[in-house]
């Protein structure tokens, strides 16, 4: 089957899959619902919702928030300072961050790409868009760290009424807290690095850059979205660009991997959609705002009974596919090993991180009771994933597949923290998402550079490369050491907190996952030894070391890894501020 046919197929499937459920939901929603959304400018008071209103447990299906008269209508566009932080800061920051990449993509659409100079211009515009996002993310993180944070505050909040006349009330509601800000920094950094790393892509450059920027928009948007429907829209925006990036620029067997990604991510998306529809219609009465549904301190809606269980597992399955967790992980190794290296870095570093983010953002606060009830199965899944990935990594001969399996084992720490649900473990999990995203993206970019130079990625055929590539070796070691939790790098504080927080809740599971990290450490170090150390080989005598281009994207990532490791004292209070939103929800109900 030719590429083109497959791409048509992709579009067709995608459109069908994306719009069919939505249309169904709209149609069904009309029938289901009382006339709640008819109130025009909705008055879902975000922060004004009474903080201490224990939800009555009489209703078996849902307990709604008290329908108090809206005290602070927040529908006037642009003038909605709901926290002290936002009143001091221009509130278009997050929007600019999200849409800068898309703007660059639109500009690039009108640029020609015939000559080398024109293609360079395209890349520069693309990098400028990603760079603006990165800069804004750094500014936002820096600003947030400097704040004297109170529990569960969100910053940079923007709320605009968007869809009000449908039964479903949707806001353009973006905000950032201690969970999303470090991840925003991670994603913008990795995307900028990926753009630099793909500087030498000459085939369909324009499309490539546009797709990367579209993907970045989707990722950054879903990290900021505080409205369920908005979150779904942004998540849906990631699917097709990544499919095309794998399908067009991938390596051997790319169509299979691309299809696998398309199926699994669309499935994940649909599951999440179903869960969110359940939340929205059964619990939120058509309002899809996070703070309404997931409000801290008991102000939100609690689904109970069988519906809560069903919605919890739907949501969890959606995240499990993304994270990935063992029974549904095979798309991951294929996608990582066949796509082009920058895309693989994005998949391993960002796409999986999104799975962890959704676990923390949607699953835990959305279903505190169910999460508590099913804590043990989640811990068992974490154990299974950790062991599976670590052991399977030992058997790999392909550098990238080894990294994929080892990454599986690393991400199980996040799942363990989700099972433990203690604040220390969750803090560690957020840091682990950042640390793992950085180190695995870096390792895959390095693996790409390696196979570009050595013309193979079979570990048995590589060897002694440190002779020719001392810089590559150094970078590889730093990223690998961070991945296995060595002090002074980001990974240590993350793993320490995850284990420390998880042990009281799940003792055996924690110990087994710890043992699995030793095995995956062995796999990573063994690969390091086989690929880089040993006597020099004739075949690689003329291999070049990392040049300016590679240093340009590797050095900032190393700096970030070390910065997150050394200045963990600045980062942790910010992260904890976001985590408190979850823990308040978990303890308060």
């Amino acid at each position, binding site marked *: 089957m030719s590429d*083109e046919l*497959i791409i048509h197929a992709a579009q*067709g499937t995608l459109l069908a899959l994306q719009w069919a459920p939505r249309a169904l939901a709209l149609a069904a929603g009309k029938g289901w619902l009382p006339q709640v959304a008819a109130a025009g400018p909705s008055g879902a008071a975000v922060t004004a919702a009474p903080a201490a209103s224990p939800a009555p447990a009489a209703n078996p299906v849902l307990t709604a928030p008290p329908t108090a008269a809206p005290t602070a209508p927040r529908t006037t566009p642009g003038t909605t300072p709901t926290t002290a932080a936002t009143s001091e800061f221009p509130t278009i920051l997050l929007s600019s961050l999200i849409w800068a990449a898309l703007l660059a993509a639109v500009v690039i659409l009108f640029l020609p790409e015939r000559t080398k100079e024109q293609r360079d211009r395209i890349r520069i515009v693309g990098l400028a868009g990603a760079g603006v996002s990165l800069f804004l993310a750094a500014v936002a993180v820096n600003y947030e760290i400097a704040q004297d944070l109170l529990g569960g505050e969100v910053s940079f909040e923007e709320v605009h009424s968007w869809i009000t*006349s449908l039964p479903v009330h949707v806001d353009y509601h973006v905000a950032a807290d201690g969970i999303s800000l470090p991840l925003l920094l991670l994603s913008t950094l990795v995307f900028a690095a990926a753009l630099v790393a793909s500087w030498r892509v000459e085939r369909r450059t324009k499309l490539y850059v546009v797709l990367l920027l579209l993907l970045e928009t989707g990722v950054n948007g879903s990290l900021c979205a505080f409205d369920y429907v908005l979150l779904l829209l942004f998540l849906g925006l990631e699917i097709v660009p990544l499919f095309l990036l794998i399908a067009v620029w991938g390596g051997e067997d790319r169509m299979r991997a691309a299809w696998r990604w398309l199926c699994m991510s669309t499935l994940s998306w649909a599951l999440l959609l179903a869960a969110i529809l359940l939340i929205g219609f059964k619990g939120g009465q058509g309002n899809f705002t996070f703070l309404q549904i997931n409000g801290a301190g008991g102000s939100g809606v609690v689904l109970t009974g069988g519906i809560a269980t069903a919605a919890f597992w739907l949501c969890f399955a959606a995240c499990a596919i993304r994270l990935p967790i063992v029974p549904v992980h095979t798309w991951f190794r294929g996608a990582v090993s066949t796509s082009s290296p920058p895309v693989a870095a994005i998949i391993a570093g960002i796409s999986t991180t999104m799975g962890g983010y959704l676990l923390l953002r949607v699953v835990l606060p959305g279903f505190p009771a169910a999460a508590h009830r099913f804590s043990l199965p989640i811990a068992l899944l974490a154990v299974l994933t950790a062991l599976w990935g670590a052991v399977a990594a030992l058997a790999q001969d392909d550098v990238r597949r080894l990294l994929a399996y080892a990454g599986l084992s690393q991400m199980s720490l996040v799942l363990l923290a989700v099972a433990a649900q203690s604040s220390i473990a969750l803090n560690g999990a957020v840091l682990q998402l950042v640390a793992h995203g950085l180190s695995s993206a870096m390792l895959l970019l390095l693996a790409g550079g390696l196979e570009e130079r050595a013309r193979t990625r079979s570990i048995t055929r590589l060897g002694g490369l440190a002779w020719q590539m001392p810089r590559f070796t150094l970078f590889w070691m730093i990223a690998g050491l961070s991945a296995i939790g*060595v002090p002074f790098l980001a990974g240590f504080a993350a793993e320490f907190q995850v284990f420390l927080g998880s042990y*009281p809740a799940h003792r055996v599971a924690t110990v087994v996952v710890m043992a699995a990290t030793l095995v995956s450490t*062995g796999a990573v*170090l063994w690969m390091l030894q086989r690929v880089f150390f040993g*006597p020099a080989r004739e075949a690689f005598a003329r291999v070049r070391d990392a040049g300016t281009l590679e240093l340009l994207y590797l050095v900032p990532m190393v700096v970030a890894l070390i910065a997150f490791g050394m200045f963990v004292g600045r980062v942790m209070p910010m992260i904890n501020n976001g985590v408190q939103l979850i823990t308040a929800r978990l303890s308060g109900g």
Partner: protein
Amino acid sequence: MTVYNLAWAVVLLPLGAALASYVVESPRRAAWVCVGGMALAFGVAIVILGYRLGHISQAPYSTTITLWTYQAGQQPNGEITTFNPQVGVLVDGLSAAVMPTVAFVTLAVQVYSLQYLRNDAGLRRFFVVTAVFGGAMLGLVASPNLFQSLFLWITLTVGSALLVGHWWHRPAAGAAALRLALTVGVGDLALLLATIFGFTKLAPDVGLLPPAPGLSFNDPFDFSLLAVEWQRVANHAVSGAGLRTLEVMAILLLVAALAKAAQLPFTGWLAGMAEAPAPALALLCATGPLTAGVYLLARTYRLFELAPHTLTAMAVVGAITAVVGAVAALAHNDIKRLLAFMSVAQVGLMLVALGVGAFSAAIFQLLTNAWFAALLCLAAGNLVSAYGTQDIRQLGGAGRRMPATARLLLAGCLSAGLVPLFAGFWSADAIVAGIIRNSSPDLVHVAPAARALVLLLTCVAILVLAAAAMRLYAAVALGEPARRRGFVPERVRESPRLMLVPMLGLAVLAVFGGLIGIEGAPRTFAKFVHVGAGAPSYGFSAAGLLITAGLTVAGGSAAVLLASGRLGWLRGALTPLSGVGQLAADALHLQGASERLVTWGVVHMAPLPVRVDDSVVEVVAGDVAAATELLGAGLVRGQPRRLPGQLLAAAAAMLIVVGAVTLAATGHFPGVGAAR
């Protein structure tokens, strides 16, 4: 008190020098920067030691900064208000005594390496690693809490692996580094688990204690608070924790220390020490992981006193390791492996001392071992670079050809052989006296049967250690080198002065340093380094002195006489025992066994999940994918246009849909937004 704040400088100067060395262009100058940092650290450590010696009765001084902090709130194990891991320094007799030795040995090794690795391509890397390694070790010594100990402990593992794998281009060196990392990694996990376990059990209760003056919180990792907590647990004052808690934590710490100190059953990676450069070997044997394990046990000694069974276990394991290590040292012909096993045996004696309650003797042995082990390893470096071989059967005649090295080696061998009047003798004497006394400061005893076993094994170990050390000297210094192809004995030259001077400093300590710790003397080491508030006053133990002196003289002279061809009857009597020697030399085949275990348990299992992924999961998922593919292809069949066209079409479709949604949303679409 402010003098004690200088301990920050001791820890940070080597680390700062490691960073600063990257500013300098030439590797050799970078090396000098690292040497300078370590020299300053050594000077400051001496100042602290001097001040502390003048103020022996002062309470331990510790100061910390918060690494990170946040409100943790309710945890599954109880209420914890804030979570705030601390880093800092702790100055008491123990750390003040150990810091100067660590700094001095590292400094000596670095100065030596300036010459030894002069033409090595990895000169800069080696110095950075040694500086970080030394800094981590100093930080571990000065560590006031379990958290800092943990992360420096892991740093030390990484540093050790980098040192062993310094010549990474040799496949054996890489394999040795990997083996080290994984074996010691077990210890890292054990310490991590001990830290977490202690936190789980004790942190909620620590929060209830009144904070120390000047602090607003209690650090649940802090050693002094942990000691209080352990006592409270022993008094059944902590809910949810009992004697079993103490025992579990003690066992975890013991496993961590055993793995770090290469005691049985974790001896396997020692064979890989043959791949390390001689200066790296000196660091690893003298101040590195081997002693770090003992030091951790000394720091947490209070816990073991409350769980006395673990003390017995510690003594027995240490004694067995001492015998096995000593016999292995006697049996090995590779000089680096020989020295590694000899150091492990010495560390085993330290564990024996800790186990029977001779706390000061253990730390004293830690210091003397650091002096003579470093000296011996550096001397081995001289020999290896002059003779071009590590096999002691091919060395020989160094007494004539390399007189200075031979004399330094003799000083080291006499000290390591625990021969009377040299440093090693006094610490071994203190250990034997401790076994005879068999009473910890808190009056905990080892069971009589275990004590008899430990005494017997220790005597055997001391005898064999003396023999092994003197055999080394006799084999190297006496006689003539063996004939080999390409080896010209006349070309063997004495090493340059830059290598001999640091060795001389170590030799002075190895010969005379023991005088600070004569058991029973009035102003002795035990008065300065002790556990608990008051220094114990031990009397002079004539039995200990006589046993140690007799055993070492007998073992040492027998080895020298055997080497010079006399005592034929003894040789004949010992021949049947060579199998035992080989067994010990292979460290009881433990490495092979554990590697087979790992191979069967883990590596052979590895293809299984992959196969499941390939055959089950992939096929199921693949069918779904194929079905979707077919469906998708069917939907768009007959529109074989080019890609940009497709994209445009998709964009147009999306535009229409978005427009429709917007219209519907704003109420312009009749029928859909009819809720209005």
